[in-house]
């Protein structure tokens, strides 16, 4: 069906970036509409991709529609460049679009992400593509799609606060830690995909364009650069992000999002940066944490290490 493109012999069986040009056009139209109405979920004719739904088919289709030969792609999965989903999607685009790839946030022009926003501040001109499993923030409160669409249309968002109310009633505080609902540009309530609420403030007035693709649910939505994004809350229970008691065990970073890693079966554990690129570049700059493997050789933080053991 698709003819070989002029972009190289190894692309013989695919159109550039896998999707055919008509499909890309359709998706780009949806993206343009999404950008024009920040936070609004635009339906689109999601295609079958060579991967199962739930593995990022929405994000992949958005990336495939906006990527060009000059782009530099970074793919992260829960902040990491080296986990299955990230490695597979990166390899996919290397194969079907022959683009250069990177793990460095700064060097990337397109960053496809599953459930994190990089720690490093995004720049103008960069595009962040989110993989979204369930785009509808009201879904678990109101199962009817016809009704949720009407609620968005009429700005009836009381129900969203019912969820937060339930959290406080049950736990004493807003216990929602991820997929924390936001109000975009003062109009649409949006699900930021299952990113930790730690990342919500990074969406506000971002320099980068943020695109969200939900393949199974067939929806695309967007936050244009410099758009106001407010996390919903109560006056007497304001929005707060997660905090961590200790710094990253490998690079010593504070004020970043950490993953807990179990070390043994006797309760040993460490907290490390979820953003692997951020952690690696800090270590390259000489920062050390309490469990850095090379701290004995580098001679850093000896007293710190002794204090712990």
């Amino acid at each position, binding site marked *: 069906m698709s003819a070989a493109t002029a972009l190289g012999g190894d692309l013989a069986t695919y159109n550039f970036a896998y999707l055919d040009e008509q499909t890309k056009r359709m998706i780009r139209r949806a993206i343009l509409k999404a950008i024009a109405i920040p936070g609004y979920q635009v339906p689109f004719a999601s295609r079958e991709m060579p991967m199962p739904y739930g593995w990022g088919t929405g994000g992949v289709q958005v990336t495939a529609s906006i990527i060009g030969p000059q782009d530099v792609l970074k793919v992260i999965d829960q902040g990491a460049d080296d986990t299955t989903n990230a490695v597979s999607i990166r390899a996919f685009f290397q194969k079907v679009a022959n683009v250069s790839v990177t793990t460095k946030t700064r060097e990337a022009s397109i960053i496809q992400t599953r459930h994190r926003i990089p720690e490093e501040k995004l720049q103008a001109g960069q595009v962040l593509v989110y993989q979204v499993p369930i785009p509808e923030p009201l879904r678990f*409160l109101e199962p009817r799609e016809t009704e949720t669409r*009407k609620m968005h249309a*009429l*700005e*009836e968002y*009381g*129900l969203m*606060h*019912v*969820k937060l*109310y*339930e959290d*406080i*009633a*049950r736990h004493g505080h807003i216990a929602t830690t991820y997929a924390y609902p936001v109000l975009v540009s003062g109009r649409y309530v949006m699900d930021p995909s299952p990113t930790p609420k730690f990342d919500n403030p990074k969406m506000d007035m971002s320099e980068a364009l943020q695109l969200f693709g939900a393949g199974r649910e067939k929806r695309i939505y967007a936050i244009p650069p410099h758009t106001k994004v407010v996390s919903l*809350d*109560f*006056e*007497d*229970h304001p929005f707060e992000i997660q905090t961590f008691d200790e710094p990253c065990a490998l690079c010593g970073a504070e004020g970043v999002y950490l993953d807990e890693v179990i070390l043994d079966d006797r309760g040993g554990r460490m907290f490390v940066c979820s953003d692997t690129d951020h952690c690696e570049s800090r270590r390259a700059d000489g920062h050390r944490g309490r469990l850095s493997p090379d701290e004995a050789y580098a001679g850093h933080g000896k007293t710190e290490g002794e204090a712990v053991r």
Partner: protein
Amino acid sequence: MTMLDETPLLSVTGLSRYYGERVGCRDISFEVYPGEVLAIVGESGSGKTTLLNCISTRLEPSAGCVSYRMRDGESRDLYRMSEAERRLLMRTDWGFVHQNPADGLRMTVSAGANVGERLMAVGERHYGRIRDTATHWLSRVEIAADRIDDQPRAFSGGMRQRLQIARNLVTGPRLVFMDEPTGGLDVSVQARLLDLLRGLVNDLGLAAIVVTHDLAVARLLSHRMIVMKDGRVVEEGLTDRVLDDPQAPYTQLLVSSILQV
């Protein structure tokens, strides 16, 4: 009795609703004044619920006009308002008490959130205040304060119905629609619910339109009643007059069918 206002709160003119060839209700006109409770009675299939749905904007009528006097005093045709305005009216100035509480409640969120939802829908964003109001309303409908965080699934039928009433009244509506509010409850629970409703309607000066097939409920709650048969109004008047001195043959039949215990 409070002095009744001169201008009607709701006025219905020539309202008809057809389901294809069949008639739901035909050419119905009446008015409801502030603070007045109107009962619509009739046997099942007589068009009571169709009529109620038509005047509460839940079902579009085939013909006729329903106008409502807004808080600013201006009467407006409900079906010429935008959907957004109608829905706002539904959750602020109106209440709707369903026969089956599960239709009017959110069964998977707590009682407190059920009562608080309308407040949050009109922009209340202070958790403490929402909770205080919810507690207050739960006590008003005789639900213990320590049940505020329980889901309605854990409530009995009578409690669910009372919770539904609290949820509807929390925004201080001026007009409440009730569809068989005591249906499916046993008689002692019915009696207490009716007592409660009567008290609330009096205290708050609510206008209410109650659909029921139970003439005892109509007698207890309503000032005026409309008797329906085959989609038409066969008789209307003050409740006591209609029940004690029924004029239309059908009303006479209906009144004489009450079981005497």
